[in-house]
């Protein structure tokens, strides 16, 4: 009979954390920030159909980085939780805080009790009302939850990106400025990211019930080009961005 090796709990946790961090760092990063009209989420994602940013409920959005199948499972669970709660009680009773806590509990549970931790980081963003403020809940792979009210950075090399976003961040900036700030923070000084490399969505403070809206490639490239360059390319000025049909 072989004796099981003794491994110190500190070592087990360290190994798991390292494993999860490595997995997350392999993927690309994501920046979310509040702007004057809502919350903006920008992910580096060349795929048009495998989304990193999605709608959970009327005023709640989800963003995930790391392993797609793992965070997508969490996204679907979030939609299910929100819809069940809204159906059983009322739409106003669905809030991001309780969902963020559930994610944190689940990720913490998996991190301590399962063989393999989830290689994901998720963000639950909620657009505020008169009663609640805009809120960004950032939940790490081991279940640590932090709430931000300005911006959040998810993924690998967060430290450098966080420094760049912090430098660019202006309280109450508009959508275009925030978008360009987020994109250049993601890209860094040596790269430029175009509309095709990005997935962008907003929770916009409009009169409609569902605040979530994706920014299509056309609208995105116009917004990224900025006011000066869009004046030169007359096509951009002449044709306003068509409303994105499935996200209007």
């Amino acid at each position: 009979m072989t004796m099981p090796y003794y491994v110190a709990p500190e070592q087990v946790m360290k190994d798991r954390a390292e494993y999860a961090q490595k997995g997350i760092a392999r993927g690309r990063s994501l920046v979310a920030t509040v702007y004057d009209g809502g919350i903006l989420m920008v992910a580096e994602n060349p795929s048009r159909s495998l989304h990193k940013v999605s709608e959970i409920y009327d005023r709640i959005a989800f963003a995930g980085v790391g392993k797609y199948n793992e965070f997508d499972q969490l996204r679907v669970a979030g939609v299910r939780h929100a819809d069940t709660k809204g159906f059983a009680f009322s739409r106003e009773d669905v809030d991001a805080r309780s969902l963020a806590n559930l994610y944190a509990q689940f990720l913490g549970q998996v991190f301590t009790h399962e063989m393999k931790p989830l290689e994901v980081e998720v963000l639950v963003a909620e657009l505020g009302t008169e009663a609640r403020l805009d809120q960004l809940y950032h939940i790490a792979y081991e279940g640590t939850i932090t709430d931000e009210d300005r911006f959040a950075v998810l993924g690998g090399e967060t430290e450098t990106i966080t420094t760049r976003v912090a430098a660019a961040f202006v309280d109450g900036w508009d959508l275009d400025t925030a978008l360009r700030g987020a994109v250049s923070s993601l890209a860094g000084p040596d790269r430029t990211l175009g509309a095709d490399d990005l997935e962008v969505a907003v929770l916009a403070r409009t009169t409609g019930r569902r605040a979530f809206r994706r920014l299509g490639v056309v609208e995105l490239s116009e917004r990224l080009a900025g006011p000066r360059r869009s004046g030169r390319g007359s096509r951009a000025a002449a044709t306003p961005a068509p409303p994105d049909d499935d996200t209007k």
Partner: protein
Amino acid sequence: MGLPLFPSGDDPGPSFAALLRRTDPTATLLPGLDASVAMPPVRHGTTVVALRYADGVIMAGDRRATEGHIIAHRAMEKVFPADRHSAVAIAGAAGPAVQMVRLFQTQLEHYEKVEGVALSLEGKANQLGQMVREHLPMAMQGLVVVPLFAGYDLARNMGRIYSYDVTGGHYEEADHAATGSGGRDARTTIKLGWHPGLGRDEGIELAVRALYEAADEDSATGGPDLIRGIFPMVATVTVDGYDTVSDTEVAERFGVLLERRRAGGGQS
């Protein structure tokens, strides 16, 4: 309530009804009742109509709910947005009907969010049919729910209308449909006034007129209430989505109708 996660072989998929059955079996539609127990009077909603017009579809419903011979509610809403590009109207037992609409609305949005794309209009009509069919045991005991479903088909660029029976059977209607206790009178009125390429004002007027005629013949259908300012509820679904027609506009269309009546000496 924990995070609703399921093993991959036992996943409810994009269906909200299946999810509810897993998580909270009591939250779905009412179960079948004991047939030997006499049903006390319950609220009933009555006449609803739908018709195609140039830009899409118009849906309208009267505002009366009855409990036996009593008027239970004067301003009930029977026309609801199902999602951005479709509408559902209900006739029959009000309690289960409104619950069915809530489940249907949640189901359509749930599917759209989980799958990332909305259901086709045909798919939505089928979903509603399944819900009506599940309700059949209750319908057999007198709690009949018969919806009307209409929407703008973005794939075909046209408005489409579906009518239902208690078994969940659904039938696409060419141009118009009406259901509920005054449905027959409403249908006749629309049939006589409808023509292809109907404009918006004309269409709203025809829908209001159909409900007026139904209220004229059927005691359970409420006519426009000028004293309280309660008018039929009218909604349109076009390529731009669901939109409720304001009370002011409905009152205006009804005013036109009344003028014509008076001028004709009570005959239209």
